[in-house]
């Protein structure tokens, strides 16, 4: 059957789809590491994380939106290819086995679609939660602004602490990070294999690296919610601060930030 070229992508060579999967995955693999290191600023105190967040938000618009756009495209292509590949893979075995043993494939590798779907749901939630702040609209209110070196900045620290004080939010984030850990523990070596950068000697090392990477990312992310519930990261806003804020923060227009 000559493959017709349409949106379903059956004309895209299988290996091209996999290359896109691996390259977009590579972008995200790099991103999660930087993101994780950014989050760890929480442990250096409210000012550190707030300053970091302020720095990111006040980057030149073209740069900020360039990076965001790049990531959005990467995620979009990754998901699109995941859908195409999964559909083809299913179609390739219309009749399954009565009995199917798994000899070597890891659980992580066999559940990439599942962990990926969870991650997509998480990413959407996460952006609505912390970036656009529509899940808890109170984060858009003036209470969540603070003064840092004379500037009025958004109080990321307080938002994070308040968020993870809700058990279901913490639970969901921990679960999603588990999915990320699982996804990465196969993905990181798989992308090298897809790009053809493996051989007999390096494959075991890359498989090891993938597991380690998965765990490092997992731990690096979950210490923040765990820090909040264990009060290693205490709430910041004391009563006096609220008063000072409400006086000082009056004249500014939060829309302009």
């Amino acid at each position, binding site marked *: *059957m000559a493959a017709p070229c349409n949106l379903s992508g059956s004309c895209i060579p299988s290996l091209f*789809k*996999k*290359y896109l999967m691996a390259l977009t995955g590579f972008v995200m693999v790099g991103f999660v590491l930087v993101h994780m290191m950014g989050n760890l600023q929480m442990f250096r105190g409210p000012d550190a994380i707030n300053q970091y967040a302020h720095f990111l938000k006040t980057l030149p618009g073209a740069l900020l939106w360039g990076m965001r756009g790049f990531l959005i495209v990467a995620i979009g292509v990754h998901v699109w290819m995941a859908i195409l590949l999964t559909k083809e893979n299913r179609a390739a075995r219309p009749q399954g*086995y009565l009995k199917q043993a798994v000899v070597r494939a890891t659980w992580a*590798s066999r559940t990439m679609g599942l962990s990926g779907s969870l991650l997509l749901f998480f990413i959407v939630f996460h952006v609505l939660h912390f970036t656009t702040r529509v899940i808890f609209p109170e984060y858009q209110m003036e209470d969540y602004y603070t003064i840092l070196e004379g500037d009025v900045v958004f109080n990321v620290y307080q938002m994070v602490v308040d968020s993870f004080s809700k058990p279901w939010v913490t639970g969901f984030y921990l679960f999603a990070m588990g999915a990320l850990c699982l996804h990465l523990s196969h993905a990181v070596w798989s992308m090298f*294999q897809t790009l*053809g950068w*493996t051989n007999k000697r390096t*494959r075991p090392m890359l498989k090891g690296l993938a597991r380690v990477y998965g765990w490092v990312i997992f731990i690096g992310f979950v210490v923040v919610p765990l820090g909040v519930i264990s009060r290693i990261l205490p709430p910041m806003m004391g009563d006096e601060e609220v008063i000072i804020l409400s006086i000082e923060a009056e004249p500014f227009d939060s829309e302009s930030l």
Partner: protein
Amino acid sequence: MKLFLKIWRQPNAAAVGAFEDYVLDNISPDASFLEMLDQLNEQLITQGKEGVAFDHDCREGICGMCSLTINGIAHGPRRATTTCQLHMRHFRDGETVTIEPFRARPFPVLRDLVVDRSAFDKIIQSGGFISVRTGSAPEANQTLVAKPDADRAMDAAECIGCGACVAACKNASAMLFVSAKIVHLNTLPQGAPEKNRRLLNMVKTMDEAGFGNCSNYGECEAVCPKGIPLDFIGQLNREWAVAKMKDIVSGVE
């Protein structure tokens, strides 16, 4: 030995198949798996029933004709062993053994356990020729091949095209098979001139046949009776990108 067999029966390609149960006694532990099936067929024929159709030819592990998914594993429980070389001593007396055909859309069942693997032949055909002079045997030292290259090409040439890689893969991907053919011919100077064209054509034919994509599970490598490694898929991936680039820039025929 006595075995309880659960075997896929399907009278022809168009028919709906189903599993049937059989009991077979007095199996010698030294019999091969196919000899066990021969014994079952004798029993069935004596009872006036239709024997179970299955593929086989050399019965010495070199032709790639035998197949079967045995207890959920292509070519059964022994590593690096074809079904014809699998012996009954690797099963327990009284065990239930499930026998299914290799399952993949490009491998339609023709009858019982026999599947049509001509999709592999199409892939091979699309690979085309290699540039050697036919006629009298060439002088042995005319084309020098480095020892590591010769070894690698020989390892790849071990592939007998049985299709176990497709059968075992969750995605029914034929990448291990194609990679073995590519590494075999692309590594040797004799296959080098057509390298890029061969690669692009074989991958295209593979895609068109409806095989799935490679997710790097590694199941194929685990069941391959000839131990073809995932390395070859890595090389295929790498060389495909190079070939595709060349095709876009200057055209590969």
